[in-house]
């Protein structure tokens, strides 16, 4: 920035005119070079961020397709493949790091990270959502912030990008929506534990986030509405499930059939809700 400016002659009154114009033109040519470099870098980062978003969405779909499989062998395979996909995304974060390193080593790259944070964060948010879903399926628990940061570090433990509490919390809020889908899918395969577990989990998350004042994280207060809807759906599933478990405890085939019907009803309602 500082090298862009060339000092104006301090007693410039006499040299005003053509010389001022020439002087300005050369100053602005430097600005042009600076803005061009910035714009190109911005474009490259946006492309990387978008591909991270795409790959993260694919990972989430992959998990939804196979994670509710009744065979534990298939489930393990799904999670292994999920990890492999997660590493593919990780490579893209490495490319972001490389891009920022091209500004300069160390401090310069870090300054660059904050400067270009807005270009990177949409992809990062989607990735955190996918990673936390994968982690939930692996551990039945919530991935801690420091674990997310560790996953997004290189082999030497250097962070590829910085995960802020804000990124993390917004990602966890999105996770509740995925878990709602996961719980309803699980119901159709006769998995009765999962909806109850998920319900408890989402309740805990929602309760904590309800304690965050809206002015502190405006984006979260909007996402909380979505979480509330997700939780209500899960609770309805659990309600129906509990009644059926009591009624047909000795007839698993009836349970499976009813679960399937409940799911179809839910899908229909969701479809209708969308049309409204």
């Amino acid at each position, binding site marked *: 920035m500082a090298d862009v400016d060339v000092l104006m002659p301090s007693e410039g009154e006499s040299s005003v005119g053509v010389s001022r114009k020439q002087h300005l033109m050369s100053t602005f040519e430097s600005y042009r070079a600076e803005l061009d470099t910035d714009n190109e870098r911005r474009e490259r980062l946006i492309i990387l961020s978008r591909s991270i978003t795409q790959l993260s969405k694919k990972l989430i779909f992959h998990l939804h397709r196979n994670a509710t499989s009744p065979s534990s062998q298939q489930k393990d395979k799904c999670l292994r493949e999920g990890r492999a996909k997660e590493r593919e995304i990780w490579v893209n974060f490495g490319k972001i790091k490389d891009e920022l390193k091209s500004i300069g080593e160390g401090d310069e790259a870090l300054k660059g990270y904050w400067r270009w944070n807005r270009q990177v964060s949409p992809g990062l948010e989607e990735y955190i959502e996918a990673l936390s879903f994968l982690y939930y399926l692996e551990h039945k628990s919530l991935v801690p912030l420091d674990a997310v940061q560790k996953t997004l570090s290189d082999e030497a433990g250097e962070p590829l990008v910085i995960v802020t509490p804000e990124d993390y919390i917004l990602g966890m809020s999105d996770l509740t929506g995925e878990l709602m889908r996961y719980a309803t899918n699980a119901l159709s395969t006769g998995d009765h*534990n999962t909806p109850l577990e998920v319900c408890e989990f989402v309740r805990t*998350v929602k309760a904590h986030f309800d304690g965050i004042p809206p002015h502190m*994280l405006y984006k979260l207060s909007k996402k909380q509405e979505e979480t509330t809807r997700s939780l209500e759906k899960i609770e309805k599933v659990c309600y129906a499930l509990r009644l059926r478990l009591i009624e047909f405890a000795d007839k698993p085939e009836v349970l499976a059939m009813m679960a399937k019907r409940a799911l179809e009803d839910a899908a229909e309602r969701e479809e209708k809700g969308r049309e409204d």
Partner: protein
Amino acid sequence: MSVEATTSRAQTVSETLSSAIELLENDQNLKKQIRESIEPIDDLSRSATTELNKLHSAPFSQHAEICQNAINIIIRSQPLWVDVAKLIPENEFYRYQFALGPTMRQLTTSIVLARFILHDELTPSHTISTILGLQSDQNGVLQLSAEDYLQGVIGAVNELPRLSVNAVTSQNFDLPIKISSFVNDIFASYSLLNLRNDALRRKFDSLKYDLKRCEDVVYDLTLRGLTKPRE
């Protein structure tokens, strides 16, 4: 799944969330502190703008004094920037730029306007940094970004058509010529930039209209033989 296992898992989840929320609160408190630290600077900035508003009504003989007053007011922000800089962690200037940028742009606008009247020049970015005291070691973390500077300059140009019109009203026929030539140079300079569709681009679009209005005033004066031939 046993009841105990469920309970302990819920506890872990709770702890994980609580600690993340605590970190979020720290972050947000810092943001709030930074926003508050900039408020006294905004007050000074508004005083400078108020002072510069007098240009439109005061006789030409007072222009230099008004501009010098405005710059002196802005210079008083120097120690306040030190307070802001103290709050910002090293290398994280751009994380908080959203809170500082608008103030820096407004101050750039005032300085550029005042120094145009005083010296008939476009104040370079590093001079603005010097006036704000951003170049001292204590303030190393702060900087006037190219984007903020370029937007601030256009802010000053946006004031000039009005000033040109009002100069004619108070029978100062030299100032519109000076303004028109300045705006012309600036418009030519900005035309060199490859802008994308962002805030700077929209600001640039406003320059065209400013230029036209300034030239119209000169046309009116020329038509009536009110301009002195330039040496």
